[in-house]
């Protein structure tokens, strides 16, 4: 081990070497000492509990597909959470109009929209053969997602970076922003390709 150590120190350039963009190469040595043979089994992974925030937008769908391709493990418990927030789609001014029939129609439409979203989510999961649970959340989306992750003992949250919300602050959606700042567990933010173009 000491030979390896001094070799590495030399590469780091101790003693006044320049450090700009210096690369320290360390390839996984094919020669493995016998004692590390004990840790031979590839990093053991059991499934994890993953909560995926889905609002039905292309960003959320992209995030899910990305998860399916890059993070999914067959033992994962996947919770696809959708927060159906009527306030987002129904402007409060219409409610103030006070027409009960109209309000009822709007609520029905909203419910229908929620069901459609769940169907889309469900189909997407089936497409990737991912066993999952659909969950409907209530309340402000950010809070609801973080709370659900907590109560479901999620090991991580997956979210897109923008959604259907009407607030389009800065480069990242307000819900994903909230999640990252308030989550107690690691959060994976997947940016839809469109977002990459904007950043250039």
């Amino acid at each position, binding site marked *: 081990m000491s030979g390896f150590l001094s070799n590495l120190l030399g590469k780091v350039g101790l003693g*006044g070497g320049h*450090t*700009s*963009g210096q690369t*320290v190469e*360390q390839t996984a040595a094919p020669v493995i000492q016998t004692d590390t043979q004990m840790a031979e089994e590839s990093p053991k992974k059991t499934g994890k509990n993953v909560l995926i925030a889905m609002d039905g937008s292309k960003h959320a769908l992209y995030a899910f597909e990305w998860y399916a391709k890059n993070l999914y493990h067959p033992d994962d418990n996947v919770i696809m959470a959708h927060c159906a927030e009527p306030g987002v789609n129904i402007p409060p001014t219409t409610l103030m109009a006070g027409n009960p029939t109209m309000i009822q129609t709007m609520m029905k439409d909203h419910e229908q929209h929620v069901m459609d979203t769940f169907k889309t989510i469900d189909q997407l999961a089936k497409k990737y053969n991912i066993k999952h649970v659909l969950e409907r959340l209530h309340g402000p989306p950010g809070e609801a997602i973080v709370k659900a992750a907590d109560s479901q003992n999620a090991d991580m949250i997956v979210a897109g970076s923008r959604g259907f919300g009407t607030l389009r602050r800065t480069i990242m959606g307000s819900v994903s922003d909230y999640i990252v700042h308030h989550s107690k567990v690691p959060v994976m*933010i997947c940016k839809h390709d469109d977002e*990459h173009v904007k950043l250039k």
Partner: protein
Amino acid sequence: MESKRTIVIAIDDSVHSEFAFDFYVDNVHRHGDHIVLVHVPEYSNILSASSLLTDPNIIAEMIKDTEERTSELVDKYSFKMQQKQLHGHVRQQCGKPGEAILECAREEGATMLILGTRGMGLMRRTFMGSVSDYCLHHASFPVLVCRHKPFINDK
């Protein structure tokens, strides 16, 4: 069918980096991943202090000190990688941490970037450090921000 992934993990001396690295190994790692650990050593504090100090020896000491800590860090993570039989390399990058990390990740063609929520910074008035915040907003690839549970009450 699985294409080779390049996983960039930003590391520093903090326990947050360690948690991020461990989380990757336990939950994200896939066989064949190429891992790039990027470290941005902090020389800015030395450079700003230099205006107050007239003794070049003190500056040389500070630089040597930083270099030593950097090489310790490199050793620590190299050992962890060897232990888990992971493939990859360590890179040092110069500049402002957030920008430097993203620069490195872009050059490496990162599939994703992994970081802790905080580093060694002393400012703890926010939920999340400025580096992770910067990276999250400016990265053009998915970012995994790892919050270490025991530290959620660090305000």
